[in-house]
């Protein structure tokens, strides 16, 4: 087959496939589960909104960050995705995170996302956790030691979902948030049924330390984040009771 023909076909396939995938976001498991959804009635406005805890940069390299993140099913109509997660990161260009996500057709999955040192991003998607449960999502950084290469390990309830080794960078900051990308979509949680980001803690290689930062919200007019204790944060969409 002439190379030009291959290029034409690949180009057409790329356009068609990309259009499909962008117009109909990818789904995960648990397609029938639609609980606690509430349309916030917001405008069709793209953007990035977070609600959770103010990121923490410990005095030394963070090694673990974890939170019991409620498995929730927020309303999402535009997306492309809504999520809740914990993360190790270094500035705005390097991160390693684990949590759950939901896409506009109502399906949910667990996800692990990480970056390298060159602007590349990777994501693995796994079966979703059971709604209403509070699995512990944890991101772990282990520096190279004793001949072993450095690694990021991503866990749910102590079970390893994914591992990256060697790592291309060293984390400096820990954070945990809920995240939406369009105002038609619900920030996880409602004012009568907030999303729990519980047992939010990190280590620098020793004992667990409570996150204990202020709550954080991108737009406090439409979303809320409340620090209930040094390690319990609750978030919700102000337009939604549940």
């Amino acid at each position, binding site marked *: 087959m002439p190379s030009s023909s291959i290029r034409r076909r690949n180009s057409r396939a790329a356009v068609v496939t990309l259009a*499909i995938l*962008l117009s109909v976001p*990818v789904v995960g498991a648990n397609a029938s589960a639609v609980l606690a959804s509430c349309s916030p009635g917001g405008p069709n406005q793209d953007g*990035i909104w*977070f609600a959770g805890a103010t990121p923490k940069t410990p005095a030394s390299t963070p090694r673990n960050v974890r939170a019991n993140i409620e498995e929730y099913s927020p309303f999402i109509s535009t997306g492309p995705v809504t999520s809740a997660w914990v993360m190790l990161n270094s500035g*705005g260009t390097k991160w390693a995170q684990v949590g759950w996500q939901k896409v506009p057709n109502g399906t949910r999955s667990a996800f692990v996302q990480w970056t390298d040192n060159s602007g590349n991003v990777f*994501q*693995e998607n796994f079966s979703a956790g059971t709604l209403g449960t509070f699995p512990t999502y944890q991101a772990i950084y282990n520096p190279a030691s004793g001949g072993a290469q450095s690694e990021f390990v991503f866990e749910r309830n102590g079970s390893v979902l994914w591992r990256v080794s060697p790592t291309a960078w060293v984390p400096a900051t820990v954070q945990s948030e809920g995240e939406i990308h369009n105002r038609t979509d619900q920030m996880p949680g409602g004012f009568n049924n907030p999303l729990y980001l519980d047992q939010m803690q990190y280590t620098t290689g020793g004992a667990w330390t409570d996150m204990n930062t202020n709550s954080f919200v991108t737009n406090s007019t439409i979303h809320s984040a409340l620090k209930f204790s040094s390690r319990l944060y609750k978030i919700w969409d102000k337009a939604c009771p549940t």
Partner: protein
Amino acid sequence: MPNLKTDGKLVTAMTKGGRARALMILLVVLMAGTVAALSVSATSTVLQSKVATAAQLAAHGIELTPLPAGVAAAVVSETAGAAAANELLKSPKGPNETYRVLASATYFSPKQTAWLYLYIGGPGFGSVGPVEGAGSRTFSSDYTGVLVDDQTGAVLRWFQGGSFTP
């Protein structure tokens, strides 16, 4: 363009409309005489995907190497597996490439044979990264892969990759 599975048989998953499918079938027929030779070479050759690089696939725990001798034959057909992958992605056009590989559901779970369906492009990522600088980052989704258990038809896991600019 047809693709090679790791067991060396021709795969017809790259269907882009009726005309493309017809051309593909014709091509397969014309190439029938060479299948045996391709099968032989495929057993000793690492295949190259046009959708994702070997390094990208390695990040997702995938190598396009020949399956070891003695693995069980697929119970789930390539077509049925593709249907499961297409349903997951809501893609009516189907994958761009198909392979039969060894893969695991999670990092440390045992590897098993699976259909790997690769699609050009992909959906939005689950997150745009840290709070710091979130509003300025832009993303490009380059590929999506779906692994389907070729014995049960269940989706093992799926993955995606791309790049971003700060």
